């Protein structure tokens, strides 16, 4: 910030006077000033504020706080709350998802093709627009809209009620022990919505060292774009392994496990950074627990559906349409004996399999750098295309009425196993941030090195973790 043209000790009578007065007063000026402000404030408060006796003031708040932030019950309650939210999301989203899929991918899709042939459009145009762009978009809407429309309002209700600061309070102890700033718990909460927003919210942390730690580890908070991947994988792979009565429960538990794993990773990486590259003192701070406020249900529904669900969906659609077009092109431009898509997937497949993933997933994550929202639709399209099933024209997704068929496509055509699904969930948690977040990290740090670390560290970690699970699964003959 200092101006190079003017050295800090350039003569300025005013500043010289300030310097000498500062020495006279001594180093405790700040404390003495703060003290007089406090004295004034308490004097004014004392004759403007009256309490109606002391009849159990804040009694209800305090009792609830003791329970929610208790050392014994704090974490179990947190786990239960998360479980409840995801259970409601998963069991509630099935029916509307199937209805939307039926509408968009069967009725509307056929109607569009009918219209295209009535207008006798050339095959490549209707293929590009309807089988590429439209279908990709339809996938995004039907797979992602219902869970988001349930999950976001529930999460926002918890937030409005005042539960999130209590979670932050519980986590504060752990962050402190990891050598990070307690406020990192708050920026992490923010990251559960959007990592770019989470990175900006680290501005509340005054120590640059601790702020960097918070920025680098924010990616371990699962963002809006990644919840749908986890929820879908949890539903069709993990939930399916449990007896039907417990399916939603098992699915919810798997999603919660990944979210908790994210918190553990954030703590672990913070611990590592604060002991290696970002060593230093941990600063103390006081976290204010706001009062519980009755959530405004209607307003919450409105804002979370309009502001969050639709914005995330819009981002997904905006990204999915061009991605769908690219995928259609990849599937229809042939080089030698196969399409570009097949070449690309086959090239990456050996690497993917080494990590318990596959070539399709890796291509999907490259295409999804701008937005994680399109991972699932991309995977489905590529799987259908590459499998070369006779039922499917090149580049076209067949209609899928519900999530069971998604399962069938992935297992039968894509050769997925339970390991693939679990590693996709892990990789969804642990990989590079999306391009918006990377750009935000750059804006906030203006430092190429830390932006690179924040981008590549999670990616490297993701490959390490998936390699580990894949190797363990193979050693024990599980796949």
């Amino acid at each position, binding site marked *: 910030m*200092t101006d190079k043209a*003017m050295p800090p000790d*350039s003569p*300025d009578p*005013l*500043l010289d*006077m*300030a310097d000498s007065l*500062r020495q006279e*007063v001594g180093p405790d000026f700040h404390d*003495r*000033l*703060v*003290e007089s*402000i*406090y004295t*004034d*404030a*308490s004097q*004014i*408060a004392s*004759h*403007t*504020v*009256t*309490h109606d*006796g002391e009849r159990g*003031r*804040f009694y209800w708040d305090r009792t609830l706080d003791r329970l929610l932030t208790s050392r014994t019950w704090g974490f179990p309650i947190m786990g239960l709350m998360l479980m409840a939210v995801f259970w409601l999301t998963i069991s509630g989203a099935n029916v509307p998802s199937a209805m939307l899929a039926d509408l968009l991918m069967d009725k509307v899709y056929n109607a569009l093709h009918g219209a295209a042939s009535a207008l006798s459009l050339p095959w490549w145009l209707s293929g590009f627009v309807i089988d590429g762009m439209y279908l990709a978009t339809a996938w995004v809407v039907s797979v992602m809209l219902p869970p988001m429309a349930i999950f976001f309002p529930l999460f926002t209700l918890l*937030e*409005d009620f005042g539960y*999130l*600061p209590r979670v932050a309070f519980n986590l504060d102890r752990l962050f402190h022990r990891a050598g990070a700033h307690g*406020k990192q718990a708050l*920026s992490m*909460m*923010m*990251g559960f*919505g*959007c990592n770019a*927003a*989470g990175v900006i*919210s680290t*501005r*509340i*942390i*005054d120590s640059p060292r601790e702020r960097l730690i918070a920025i680098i580890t924010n990616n371990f908070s699962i963002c*809006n774009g990644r919840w749908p991947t986890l929820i879908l994988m949890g539903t069709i792979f993990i939930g399916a392994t449990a007896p039907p009565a417990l399916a939603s429960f098992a699915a919810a538990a798997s999603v919660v496990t990944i979210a908790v794993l994210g918190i553990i990773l954030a703590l672990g990486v913070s611990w590592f950074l604060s002991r290696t590259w970002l060593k230093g003192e941990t600063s103390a701070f006081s*976290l*204010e627990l*706001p009062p519980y*406020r009755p959530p*405004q249900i209607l307003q919450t529904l409105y*804002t979370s559906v309009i*502001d*969050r669900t639709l*914005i995330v969906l819009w981002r997904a659609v905006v990204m999915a349409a061009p991605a769908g077009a690219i995928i259609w092109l990849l599937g229809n431009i042939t080089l030698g004996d196969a399409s570009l898509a097949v070449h690309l997937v086959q090239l990456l497949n050996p690497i993917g399999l080494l990590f318990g993933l596959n070539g399709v997933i890796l291509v999907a994550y490259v295409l999804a750098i701008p937005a994680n929202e399109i991972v699932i639709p991309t995977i489905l399209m590529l799987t259908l295309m590459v499998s070369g099933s006779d039922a499917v024209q090149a580049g076209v997704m067949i209609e899928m009425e519900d999530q069971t068929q998604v399962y069938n496509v992935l297992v039968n055509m894509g050769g997925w196993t339970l390991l693939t699904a679990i590693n996709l969930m892990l990789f969804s948690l642990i990989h590079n941030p999306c391009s*918006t977040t990377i750009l*935000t990290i750059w*804006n906030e740090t203006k430092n190429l090195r830390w932006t690179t670390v924040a981008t590549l560290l999670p990616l490297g970690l993701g490959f390490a973790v998936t390699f580990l699970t894949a190797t363990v699964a193979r050693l024990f003959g599980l796949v």
Partner: protein
Amino acid sequence: MNTDAVMPKAACATCSLAQNARLIKLGIETGGWDYVVALAGNPNTGKSTVFNAVTGLRQHTGNWPGKTVTRAEGGFIYDGKRYKLVDLPGTYSLLSTSVDEEIARDFILFGQPHVTVVVVDATRLERNLNLVLQILEITDRVVVCLNLMDEAERHGIKVDDRALARDLGVPVVPTVARRGEGIPELLAAIAQVASGEYATRPHRIRHLDPEVGQAVERLTREIEKTFKGLPNARWVAMRLLEGDERIIEAVRKHELGELAPAAEMASTMQPALETA
């Protein structure tokens, strides 16, 4: 200093007709304004809720401190005048150095808003006053928005807003921003302070110990000589005595008193990215 006389009475306050007649919400339209109004306050006192109520925007609000860390801007027309409203990050003080406090401080100091509305939590008045007193040292054009009156009532806390207005020397308006109560009165108070119709007599920090007090006075006089007409020489003196680098730099570069767009730098990211 009683402002009740010119304000709508209770029944009108909640009537949408009365509000609509004088208030036009402009959303993000902020061009060609007559006045700039800053919205400051401790975290989680409802600044963003006030912001939304007045501009018609839907800044995300959340029940936890640290929700707003960037500046958000919106506009409204009240009684024919165009206002630009700037929602600042919530801060407990303006004395420390985290980025959010700097954004708030720089805007109030260098952005020189015509009016600074300090939103305070009626249930935690004493703690909130610390920030109010600091802001009153920087600018005398302040309106205190005594928010969360419903919560105060629920907890059996009564705040004498008239006594508070007398002590602080600026208008104090009790509100329940979530329900829009008190917003018309708040707008009227903002208009009065903006136009100078309401002459404020801001409280200045009193209980400085003699040694500190003298040093502050001497330096203040010197600053007033160098920067004629600087409205907050005393505050600058206190910052210099504390060795605040940002203010030392501002003195050296003679930025004080100019409309330096310092606050612009910090807000490159608008919350257009959806916030969680």
